[in-house]
């Protein structure tokens, strides 16, 4: 009797745990099986082709990357600066347009979920439409250059900013709005003295965050002719000038890391 009592008793895991484990295992096996099917049906090149390709490209690539071309620095820096300016204007354009739209997608300002639906649907549509396709359309319509890229970024940013802005507006404290209404203020007073002061810091913070995203996006818009560092970069990629490519990559990465650091510092102080 005492022998039995002294035996260590490890309790069975609860049923929900067992079920989660079973589902997890099933999902893992299922995704591996799917990977094998995808690999078998995918149009992949033969290993020999990949390996001979690597043998041919890797030595010059290594030489170029271990010795970045200093002469490319001015070009890389200047086109990165243009990229930066494009991101500034694209973000501002998106911010201004989203500012207007966000009030048309905020439930608490429109008085209900149904009234906010068209605005919200429009924002989803804009957010899902790939930016680079917008850039292609604008390049074809207004010609190659920074303007096409800025337009594409501006329009695409509306989707993200409009959604975030309307979320911010829906989350404001209704107290000040009611106070101004109670003291006889009209809709315009409510908007300027109760809504705007509450949302402005968060708007500014998200605008900066979107700017960080747009700076990354702006580096690739040049691949379709929409201005910025992507244009000179894709030319050099076609000729495999790895020493110049590596210099441009260093400039891109350094620029993005520095701007990210500054921007996130400002954002921390804002909210």
């Amino acid at each position, binding site marked *: 009797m005492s022998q039995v009592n002294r035996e260590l008793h490890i309790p069975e895991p609860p049923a929900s745990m067992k079920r989660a484990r079973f589902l997890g295992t099933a999902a893992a096996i299922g995704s591996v099986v799917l990977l094998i099917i*995808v690999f078998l049906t995918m149009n992949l090149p033969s290993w020999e082709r990949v390996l001979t390709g690597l043998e041919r490209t890797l030595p010059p690539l290594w030489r170029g990357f271990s010795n970045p071309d200093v002469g490319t620095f001015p070009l890389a820096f200047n086109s990165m600066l243009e990229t930066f300016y494009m991101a500034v*204007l694209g973000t501002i354009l998106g911010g201004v347009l989203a500012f207007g739209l966000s009030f048309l997608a905020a439930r608490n300002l429109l008085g209900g979920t149904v009234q906010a639906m068209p605005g919200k649907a429009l924002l989803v549509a804009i957010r899902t439409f790939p930016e*680079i*396709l917008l850039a292609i*359309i604008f390049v074809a319509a207004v010609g190659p250059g920074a303007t096409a890229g800025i337009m594409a970024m501006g329009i695409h940013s509306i989707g993200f900013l409009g959604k975030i802005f309307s979320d911010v507006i829906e989350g404001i404290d209704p107290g000040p709005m009611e106070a101004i209404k109670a003291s006889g203020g009209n809709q315009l007073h409510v908007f300027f003295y109760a809504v705007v002061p509450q949302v402005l810091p968060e708007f*500014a913070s998200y605008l900066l965050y979107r700017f960080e995203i747009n700076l990354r996006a702006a580096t690739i818009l040049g*691949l379709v002719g929409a201005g910025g560092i992507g244009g000179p*970069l894709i030319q050099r990629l076609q000729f495999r000038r790895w020493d110049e490519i590596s210099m441009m990559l260093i400039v891109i990465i350094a620029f993005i*890391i520095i701007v990210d650091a500054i921007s996130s510092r400002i954002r921390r102080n804002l909210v």
Partner: protein
Amino acid sequence: MPESPQHPSAPEVGSEARSTIPAPPAGGRIKALLGLVIAALLIGISFDQTSFNLPALFSGAADFWSFLGRLAPDWSYLPAIWGPLIETLQIAYVGTFLGTVLAMPLIFLASANTSLDPISMWIARTLLTILRSIPDLLWAALLVPILVVGPLPGAIALTFFTIGILAKLGSETVEAIDPGPLEALRATGAGRNAQIMFAVVPQVAATMVSYILYSFEINVRASVIIGLVGAGGIGFLLQVRLNFFDYSAVGLIIIVIFAVVLLIDGISVWARSKLI
């Protein structure tokens, strides 16, 4: 005479009443003003340097609409799209899978509460920062000349990209866990792997699955466009049709891409809402 002391006191009462409305704090105002000035300067310089031309855009609006008219889709082209579309989804799947597998060790190396030592944590974090500062399309453009043109560089590009986002999101989640179970296991003398397996993984599993779905969503979006630089999928078809100025096919491809992205987004958002 008795009026004189009262008279000057009257405006005093008024000024006292007025002074009960406090002036807004000065520090915030000055900072906000400074921020506005800097922003305005930056915008001005940007306008100047990019020669961004808003009026020309409005005058070109007519051209723009007529161009959009030429994008009217040619539906007879639809059967030619399915093959590249499936390849696009294959690229997104392979990229997400390989990226997820490779991100796992990096997540634990980059998290302060599970890392081996400060040096390997710093290396892992720097690697992730660099991975994330290169956009998906740029990864594809870099890999196409190295690997053979087609879906392979696309899948590898998305793998790198996935590692960057997933490991960042993952290590943030791992750092936010309840430290109790971790300390309990440490106290029993469990090894590092056992600690991660039984104290960390159960706490983050659901969130991680949600993040994996999220990166699949992002990868579908990326996989439709990386073909523009030769990395396979429907974007490659788009590039070819663009080069031929075959705008009715381009219009159709854009519509199909939009529909697929919308569909995958919807499914993924629904699945994620079920998870957490």
